[in-house]
């Protein structure tokens, strides 16, 4: 294991009794398995998306027959004229596609971190208008029942998480994030959408332990690698402005932080405006 901490960090850790936490937070290099990736152009957010998403999923030869599928969009806040949330048409297109592929059940589930009232946010973002019987197919992860999950690998000071049973019991959890800018890292490239599965009542426990324990290290290394730093202004003009997530950001750990619990796998389907 490579301990990726600076001398200054070691000294600070020794003085404040957080040396162990620093070791826990230190980066571990893991080999990433090759993943099948499709990038598909869609002309507009219109009815043609349904066929586009169906064809994209068919290419990946996913067998979801008889499986319980949970779609996790990215709902953060709503701001008219801005592009913050996953477009409801993308989510509904995925919903229809997985249903057509023979899934036993398909649910849409989300637990935003800023606005704890998910249904209000979904309403403002157009989900009630686009997704028929939205309340029947939607689970608000902020108020779902939870189970304690111990983290097999520690990337922060957290040893455990409380995760919603709807997500844990899914056979396939499909992350449908919104590709956009981020106030700390400039871009998170859709890697952290699953943070929104931690129920709102407990979310801060996770994100803030992570933020206070580790995000600054990640942030600084990001800055070192991207020089000059990515300026959000240009991105904002083209892709819409994203409001900041929190004072301390939601940066945590690394991709792959989702604990390998439950029966399911995970899959990424991103909504990216270009």
């Amino acid at each position, binding site marked *: 294991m490579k301990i990726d901490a600076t001398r*200054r*960090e070691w*000294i*600070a*850790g020794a*003085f*404040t*009794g*957080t040396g162990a936490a620093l070791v826990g937070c230190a980066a571990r290099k893991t080999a990433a398995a090759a993943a099948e990736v499709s990038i598909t152009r869609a002309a507009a957010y219109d009815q043609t998306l349904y066929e586009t998403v169906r064809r994209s999923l068919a290419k990946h030869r996913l067998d979801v027959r008889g499986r319980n599928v949970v779609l996790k969009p990215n709902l953060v806040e709503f*701001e008219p004229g801005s592009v913050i949330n996953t477009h409801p048409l993308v989510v509904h297109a995925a919903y229809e596609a997985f249903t057509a592929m023979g899934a036993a059940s398909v649910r849409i589930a989300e637990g935003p971190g*800023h*606005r*704890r*009232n998910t*249904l*209000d946010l979904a*309403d*403002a973002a157009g989900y009630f208008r686009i997704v028929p019987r939205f*309340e029947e197919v939607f689970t*608000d992860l*902020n*108020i*779902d*029942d*939870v189970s*304690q999950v111990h983290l097999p690998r520690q990337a922060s*000071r957290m040893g455990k998480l*409380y995760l919603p049973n709807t997500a844990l019991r899914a056979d396939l959890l499909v992350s449908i994030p919104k590709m956009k800018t981020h*106030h700390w890292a400039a871009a998170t490239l859709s890697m952290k959408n699953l943070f929104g599965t931690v129920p709102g*009542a*407990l*979310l*801060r*426990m996770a994100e*803030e*332990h992570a*933020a*206070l324990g580790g995000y*600054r290290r990640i942030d600084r290394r990001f800055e070192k690698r991207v020089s000059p730093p990515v300026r*959000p202004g240009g991105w904002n003009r083209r892709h819409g*402005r994203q*409001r*900041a997530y*929190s*004072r*301390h950001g939601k940066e945590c750990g690394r991709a792959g932080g989702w604990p390998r619990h439950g029966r399911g796998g995970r899959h990424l389907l991103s909504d990216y405006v270009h």
Partner: protein
Amino acid sequence: MIEFLLKKQNSDGGWPYGNGGSWTEPTVYAVRALLAAGETAPAKRGIDWILRTARPDGGWASRPGVGESSWVTALATLIPEEYLGEQTSRRTIEWLVGTRGEDTTAVYTLRERLLGRPASADCAHPGWPWTRGAAAWVAPTAAALIALEREQRLRPSAQNVGQIAGRAAAGRNFLLAHMCREGGWNHGATNAWGYDMAPYPETTGMALLALRGVRAPQMERALAAARRSLSTRSADGQNWLRLGLSAHGQLPANCRPPEEVAYRTVTEVALNEIVNRGGLS
């Protein structure tokens, strides 16, 4: 609305947010709503649930099974003391007084200094976190402030009154420091990448309720932002805005929530009942 609350009560005496197991937050609001409506029997079953779920450290977890006390500890003090009991009440306040944003603790500040980073701007006026070990935010700070001020009114000559007054003053300053430029509050950020952040209706209402009686130049901006937000379709937003504006005597006469506001969860329904029956005094 009261029927809805009665129907949603779990067999263990507590309430879920929507469906499922009992959580502390909806149970506290449901108890207060039922007490206000004179439904004492189900309210007492709810209070028994709250007393049963108190943690050894004097706090409450968001729900049983979560092994960590959290911000909902402040909400527990909304249960009238004749039911909560003086000893439980005092322990709850002790938990709150001993809790602050992690980024303002001495250990964290020292670590940051050693790493060559500036200390948190909130060190001078620490707020409250959602859970211990995390940074402070607007909503848990507002809830804790409401609890401490209630304690000050209940026991003005308590032994730790100075400590309570100090934390309450810090909490008020935290809220004032985290007000959005246009007035009102969001989760706690006022600016990011040079953009001013917009307030949310629900946190604006909560903060206003916590700042009852505060006279500061920026309060007019906050009250104006709250009045502007009264058109929100969010039930949560409506409830807290009405509570917050009422606390300052600024709720417009005959103000009614828009027709399209949907009250779906136990917290929304219970808070609406509380608003309509006199508020969280």
